[in-house]
């Protein structure tokens, strides 16, 4: 067999660009968002952009477990919490050790403050931040391995309860930790504490605060892009197909030589790694994290994104994450569809007409959504009620309606681009899986 694979082996100089181009694109994309888009949408807009990005990382990483592998995990916020606390403590106490204070020591790419920034692109502080987020991801991944182990024996509701329990254990343990050390007060005992000992002072129920903020649009969306690349590559590979086969039928998967145990645990580890990174970005957005906010409610929010997007659809989960992050904010003061909403709707309608001319469902849905939106605004204005009072009710109603209309989620197990005609999917012909022309029979 190895001799037959050899002839398919690409030369390194063709393989390397193919392996790395998404990374380059990710950097450019993130820089574009940070330098060009973020300054134009205001502080609140940039904040929403960061929140949507973090939601995308969380939802797509949970897709690996709930969507691909078919395990039902509702403890994703626990991994996020672990990653967040790890990153926050490392940056906080690390800043103190490295620089002697808790101020921002990053470069331009991490600058969240007001006003123009003068200084280099990257500095030592950014290094600390990146390492902290990576450590957060690794700690979460280790926890993912531990949580993955019971999934060998449990499935369905039973596994859900275990993961729920895990999330709660993380929250309760963190809330029981000693107070955050006020290092500025030159506490006499402080010098004796080693760095790992410092890291256990997580602030308990008050949460952890005061860490310098580094998570900008750039870092968050760079992580988003890299996460998407990794997860989509996973889905398209034999690794991803093995995960999907476990979801479809465990007995048949085992009969195909798939080591179910190993794949389930690895799915948890892989998923937790990115959730941990998302937690780190979340914590260092303003330098504050509170385990109480990352309880099971948060886990459910992420599960909803995954289910809404379609179990197994990475692009669906990402889209759902953006919609569900923006919707509650938009409902505070629902803007009129005129003119930009209608322009957007027209574009979507044109795309639907182009790619699925015979299907009426998507078009009717689009018209329905627009009509409902305007009707809601009109009704509220007429009755003199403030929609923002009812925004969570409307949000919940929207979820119910979507799940009734599309029980399989927005895209089912497929991706957005799977709905494009075959001839449009130009990257398929050059993708890694296509055999070269004239390959031996």
């Amino acid at each position, binding site marked *: 067999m190895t001799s037959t694979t050899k002839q398919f082996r690409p030369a390194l100089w063709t393989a390397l660009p193919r*392996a790395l181009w998404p990374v380059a694109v990710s950097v450019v994309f993130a820089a574009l968002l940070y330098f060009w888009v973020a300054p134009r949408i205001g502080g609140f807009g940039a904040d929403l952009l960061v929140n949507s990005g973090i939601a995308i990382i969380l939802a797509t990483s949970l897709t690996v477990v709930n969507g691909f592998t078919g395990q039902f995990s509702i403890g994703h916020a626990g991994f996020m919490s672990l990653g967040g606390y790890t990153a926050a403590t490392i940056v906080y106490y690390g800043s103190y050790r490295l620089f002697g204070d808790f101020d921002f020591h990053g470069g331009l790419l991490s600058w969240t403050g007001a006003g123009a920034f003068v200084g280099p692109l990257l500095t030592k502080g950014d290094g600390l931040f990146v390492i902290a987020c990576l450590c957060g991801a690794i700690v979460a991944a280790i926890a993912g391995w531990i949580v993955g182990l019971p999934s060998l024996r449990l499935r369905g509701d039973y596994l859900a309860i275990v993961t729920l329990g895990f999330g709660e254990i993380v929250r309760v343990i963190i809330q029981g930790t000693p107070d955050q050390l006020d290092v500025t007060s030159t506490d006499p005992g402080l010098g004796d504490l080693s760095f790992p000992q410092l890291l256990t002072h997580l602030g308990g129920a008050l949460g952890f605060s005061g860490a310098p903020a580094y998570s900008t649009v750039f870092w968050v969306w760079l992580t988003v892009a890299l996460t998407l690349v990794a997860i989509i*590559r996973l889905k398209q590979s034999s690794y991803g197909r093995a995960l999907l086969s476990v979801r479809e*039928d465990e007995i048949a998967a085992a*009969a*195909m030589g798939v080591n179910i145990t190993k794949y389930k645990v690895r799915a948890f580890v892989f998923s937790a790694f990115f959730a941990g990174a998302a937690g780190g970005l979340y914590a260092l957005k303003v330098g504050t994290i509170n385990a109480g906010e990352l309880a099971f409610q948060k886990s459910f929010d992420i599960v909803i994104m995954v289910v809404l997007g379609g179990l197994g659809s990475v692009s669906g989960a990402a889209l759902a994450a953006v919609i569900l992050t923006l919707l509650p904010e938009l409902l505070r003061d629902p803007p009129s569809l005129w003119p930009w909403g209608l322009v957007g709707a027209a574009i979507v309608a044109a795309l639907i007409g182009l790619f699925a001319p015979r299907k009426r469902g998507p078009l009717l849905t689009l018209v329905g959504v627009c009509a409902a939106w305007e009707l809601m605004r009109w009704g509220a204005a007429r009755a003199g009620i403030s929609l923002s009072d009812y925004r969570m009710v409307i949000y919940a109603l929207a979820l119910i309606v979507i799940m009734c209309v599309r029980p399989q989620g927005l895209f089912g197990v497929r991706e957005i681009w799977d709905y494009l005609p075959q001839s449009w999917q130009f990257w398929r012909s050059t993708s890694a899986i296509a055999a070269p022309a004239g390959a031996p029979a």
Partner: protein
Amino acid sequence: MSDALLEVENVSIAFGGLKAVQNFNLSLPPGSLYGLIGPNGAGKTTAFNLLTGVYRPDAGVVRLGGRRVNGKRPYKIARAGLARTFQNIRLFGELSVLDNVRVGCQMRHPHGLWSTVLRSPGYVAAERAIHHHSLELLEIFGLQDQSLQQAKNLPYGNQRRLEIARAVATGPKVLLLDEPAAGMNPREKIELMNLIRFIREKFSLAILLIEHDMTLVMNVCEQITVLDHGEIIARGSPTEIQSNPKVIEAYLGQPDA
């Protein structure tokens, strides 16, 4: 004895008080095509599950190519070269026809998580080989035109064929077919017979099949084992089995009881 590819010695299993399979013996030489028949509930599928590791036998030994495989986990037995299909079709319904076969193929082209995420040259080579090999198999099984359809949307007969294709894709030495002709019409059954004979030659497999369709069994199998109430009641060539009074009794009951 040692030249048999699959060697089963006195394998037994009981579920509580029910002795589902007792003292099951079988010796499958390379390239052979054997049948396993018996009335409903005789323990045929249980025997398959014992061979493939879905159940652990209470007693007895299963050897594949001279190495003990009983007690091993199903995926290890599959990797050792024992592939199977299922009585109630177990395809990966949401996946495409091509992906179903690819899942079978990839066992022989392993690569790690890192090389997957980084798309290393080794990964690309393995994926290409899997893709290439899968397309070949789909063509052999006449499924190339449906390769991008979801498996659950295939007609029944094609689902059965796809299951066989997926099993063959694992590159087995021995193939176990559990009622491959169930639900097929007469024309499909004839095609299936030819297909079974063809893949045995093409992939030099030893095949053991469970089947209720006697025309098919009598036509393709060289040797038949008959199970009833978990025990072997007869063994022999198709003609011998057809005239065996014990077999007739098991299927039709005793005359003038």
